[in-house]
Every structure is written in structure tokens, then in C-alpha cells.
């Protein structure tokens, strides 16, 4: 029962990040922050379970795709793939230091962007122009915003973990 409640709480937090992202971009259309990606990466690092990465990536990706003009599966795939890479990195490097987390978030964010574009080119036959500056900026924003958000997620999920 406790496990079920804990899982439900985590899922609610994940869904909340998508809702918050929808509202944030409503008022700040040029926002490059990807809150759901940060949430998936947090779960990957915190839970240290690939199952959580898959579950959260699927839920977040499905929600994002449903509320976007893009096809279903694009965001889910990106998030699960990047989450899995982070999971693998997590088994090799200790990510409890702020700088390591920052680096991992930055790299993951870049990978997510590149994978997203690659999928659009390969599967949707889109003629994408890569905006390197935008991708880098997005990576920086996600990494910088990710650290306090990780702390916040930890604070939120702490009572549930105890």
C-alpha cells in the first residue's frame, strides 16, 4: 500500500511538470526549459531503476506529444533513451556532487535535443535546420534550472521515502 501511494505521488509530480510546462510556455513562449525532461532525469538518478525511467519517460512523453502538434512517441522515445543513457552513466559515475549532476543534465539535454531532431529527420522526413545556439542554450538552462529542481524534488519526495 505504501509503495503504491509513493508511486502515485511520484506520478502526480511527473504529470505536474507537464502541466506546469504548458502554463509556463503559455506566458513565456520563448522558454527553453524542459521541465518534464528534468523530472525524468531526476527519477532516473534518484530511483536508480530503469523501470522508473521507462515509466516516467512514457508518461511524460505521451502527455507532451498529446498536447503538441507532433506525432505520438517522439518525446517518449527521446526521454526514455536519454533517461536510459543517464541510468547507465549513473552506474559508472557518482552523481551526488552538484557539478557532476550539472554536467549530466547538460549532456542529457543536448542529447535529447539531438535525438529529437534526428528522429524528426529520419522518421518524419523533415528538413531540419540545426540551431546549435538554441540547443546549447536549452542545455544550459536545463542544467542550471535542474539543480534547484532536483533539490526541490528531493524535498517533495523525502517524506514519501521515509
Amino acid at each position, binding site marked *: 500500500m505504501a509503495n503504491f501511494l509513493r508511486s502515485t505521488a511520484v506520478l502526480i509530480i511527473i504529470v505536474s511538470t507537464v502541466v506546469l*510546462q504548458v502554463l509556463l510556455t503559455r506566458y513565456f513562449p520563448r522558454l527553453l*526549459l524542459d521541465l518534464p525532461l528534468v523530472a525524468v532525469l531526476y527519477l532516473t538518478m534518484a530511483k536508480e531503476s530503469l523501470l522508473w525511467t521507462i515509466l516516467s519517460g512514457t508518461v511524460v512523453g505521451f502527455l507532451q506529444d498529446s498536447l*503538441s502538434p507532433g506525432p505520438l512517441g517522439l518525446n517518449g522515445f527521446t526521454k526514455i533513451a536519454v533517461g536510459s543513457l543517464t541510468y547507465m552513466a549513473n552506474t559508472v559515475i557518482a552523481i551526488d556532487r552538484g557539478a557532476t549532476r550539472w554536467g549530466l543534465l547538460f549532456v542529457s539535454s543536448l542529447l535529447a535535443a539531438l535525438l*529529437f531532431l534526428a528522429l524528426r529527420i529520419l522518421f518524419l522526413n523533415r528538413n531540419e535546420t540545426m540551431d546549435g545556439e538554441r540547443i546549447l542554450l536549452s542545455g544550459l538552462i536545463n542544467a542550471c534550472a535542474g539543480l534547484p529542481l532536483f533539490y526541490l524534488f528531493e524535498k517533495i519526495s523525502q517524506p514519501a521515502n521515509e
Partner: protein
Amino acid sequence: MKQFFKTRLEWILLVVVLIGHLVLLSTRLSRSEQTPLLRAWTMEVAYPFLKHVVGSVSSVAVLWRDYIDLRHAREENAELKGQIEQYRRTVLGYEERIREIGRLQVLSDLEASLGLPSVKARVIGADPTHWYQSRILDKGREAGLARDCPALSADGVVGRIVQVSRNSSVLQLITDVDSGVGVLLENSRAQGVLKSEAGHQPFIEYVGSSEEVVVGEKVLTSGLDQIYPKGLLVGYVTDSKPAKQVFQRVGVTLSANVSKLEEVLVLKKEPRS
């Protein structure tokens, strides 16, 4: 003799004092125009004391009164501040409502001038990824919306519906990278497709290099995409550059500010006969 004075001292004093008073009275009577010197001296001596004592008392009284007033004023001030804040909020609410009514009125006018079945919808969210340019609307299938319904603002075309649920829908903006709008230039009647690239100004593709494009010319929907009705304003030409092969790339500034959309008018799809 000494004994006499000693035993009757009080009486003697009494008499002296009475006489003294009589003398004083007599001087007062004789020169009534002026204040007697003794009296003046007495007054002068008494004056500072009186002044300070009475002044102090009155100061205390004033202070007390002020304090009471201040307390009342403070309470009144807090109450008035609260009232002002409440009025300000109410006024702000009214102002926002008036603006909204104004915008909706403009859309109603547009609806009437177009003479096409349409639905007014409010923007309730934006794209949850930063890859697309889309908005989430508060109207869906139940209100008669369907895929490919065009959406307009008072200033021009803004996009088309790409996803519909029962009570909401996703509007793809014309600034989205996957969007394409069939357009024509007002004067030259040259046709092309309006496209967008992330972070760049929208442009028209497939305009022949021999076409004469004038800066400031109106860009209208051509109707050839079978989504947007013909003749709706999209924007204005800003520049033109030679592109690959026999085409030129025409820069466009959109007439509608799609990044600040709050309400849109969605044209319903006419049933195909």
C-alpha cells in the same frame, strides 16, 4: 511691651495684612488705568510658572488628544488601505474584463464580416515542448471544431487546429516549423507557401524569381491549401532574396502577434457536399 506683641502677634499680623490690602485697594482705585506695579511684578513672577504648568497640561491634553486621534487615524488608515486595495483589485478585474470584452467584440465583428460559421476559443496553454509553436484551446469537438479548422485573430491568420479532443484542441501556429500556408501576394498575385524556421522570420517559398515583389505588399491566403479560406490577411512583405533554382525567398512579417494570443476565432469546417 515685648510680652504684649508676643502674645498678640497673629492679631497684629492680621491687622497689618488687612491694612495692606486696603492700601492696595486704595492705589487701584486711585490709578485704575494702569496695572499696579506690585500686581505687575506678581504677574511677571507667576507668568513663567503658569505658562509652563498650563502649557504642560494643555500639551499633555493635546498630546493625549493627538494620540487618540492617531489611534483612530491608524485604524482608519488601515481600513482605508484595505478598501483601496480591494477597489484596486476590483478595478483591475474590471479593466481586464473590459479588455477581454473588447477583444471578443473585435472577434465578433470579424465573425460577422466573414459570414462563416465559427467559434470563439480561449488560449489555455501552450506547447509542453520547446520544439513546436502551438497553443491549447478551451474548445473542442463538442463546440464543432475539427482537424484543419483555420484560426484567426483580429489581426489575421494565426494557425490551424491539428488535434481535437471533446473539450479542447491543439492549435498549430503559422510560426511552427511544420506549418505551411498557401499564400498569394496582393498586387503581383504571385503564389507560394508560407513557412517558418525556429527563431527566424517566416518566409514564402516557391515564388518565381521573375515575380515582382514589393516591400510592404499584403500577403493573403490563397485558399489552395484547402484549409484557409481565400483572401485572409497573413502579413506583409519585408524583403526578398534569391533562393535556389528559379525561386526567391520572400520575408514576411505576420500581421497577428501569435506569441501573445489570448482568444482566437476558429472557423468551422463547412460540410462537404
